[in-house]
């Protein structure tokens, strides 16, 4: 194993550790696909995202510090790619319905198809922040600390996002019935938020939605 962190310029193609790196990369592809699917909510967009991530990871392999968590490193790249693709799509073609449908995480009405489980549908109703935190910790097996590193926020923030995500999922799935009156959100704030998100998701004119979020 190399003992020194390679510099950015050390990109000789025959570095012996490149073989190991690629082997490890290969082994982590299934998890990249799963995380990508949970972010985008659809298979095609997710696999494009996972492939972009692989290319980025390979190009940046000299910046990976051997012995650290490669899975977390890859998930960080994937997450950055997801948000930057989406921002770019918003900037470039906010008026273009066709482009809007290509946005990862866009065109979400298609995920409300019959073959998706209730939980999968409910997951699409969460905010991006809550969804990614819940997936990383609840399904991806990451510690709160690693998830905080991936999401670039404080550990406490991840904890509260996960807690709120769990509660919101339960409310969506069980229609509030499991919570007693005293534990209900004041004024049904969560319910309003969920309904607002559902409204956005079911809006047929996604291009208009994208336009609204266009930076001035």
């Amino acid at each position, binding site marked *: 194993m190399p003992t020194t962190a390679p510099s950015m310029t050390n990109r*000789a*193609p*025959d570095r012996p550790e*490149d073989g190991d790196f*690629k082997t490890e*990369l*290969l082994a982590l*592809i*299934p*998890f990249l*696909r*799963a*995380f990508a*699917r*949970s972010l985008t909510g659809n298979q095609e967009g997710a*696999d494009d995202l*996972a*492939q972009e991530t*692989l*290319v980025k990871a*390979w190009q940046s392999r000299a910046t990976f510090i051997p012995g650290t968590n490669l899975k977390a490193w890859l998930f960080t790249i994937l997450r950055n790619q997801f948000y930057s693709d989406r921002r770019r799509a918003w900037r470039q073609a906010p008026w273009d319905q066709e482009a809007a449908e290509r946005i990862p995480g866009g065109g979400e009405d298609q995920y409300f198809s019959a073959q998706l*489980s209730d*939980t*999968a549908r409910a*997951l699409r109703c969460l905010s991006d922040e809550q969804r990614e935190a*819940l*997936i990383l910790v*609840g*399904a*991806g097996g990451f510690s709160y600390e690693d998830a905080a590193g991936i999401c670039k926020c404080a550990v406490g923030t991840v904890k*509260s996002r996960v*807690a*709120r995500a*769990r*509660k919101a*999922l*339960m409310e969506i*799935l*069980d229609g509030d019935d*499991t*919570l*007693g009156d005293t*534990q*209900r*959100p*004041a004024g049904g*704030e*969560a319910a309003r938020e969920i309904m607002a998100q559902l409204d956005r998701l079911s809006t047929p004119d996604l291009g208009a939605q994208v336009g609204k979020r266009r930076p001035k």
Partner: protein
Amino acid sequence: MTQQWETTVSKDEKPTEKARAIRARQRAIGRELRRMFDDVAQEPVPDDFMDLLRQIDDAEDAKGGKKVS
């Protein structure tokens, strides 16, 4: 205020039937989330990914001007 309902069960409250039910439900949802994630992770990796890694190899070969075996 959203803070009001952050805690499903207050800490000084004895675990009630309802609290136990909520925890059981949360565990079930957690299992379902893991199942969804694992289902994708267990799918065979599409050929596109292998093609991509081969392309990376080819590009490296071309750039380095030598064969990496």
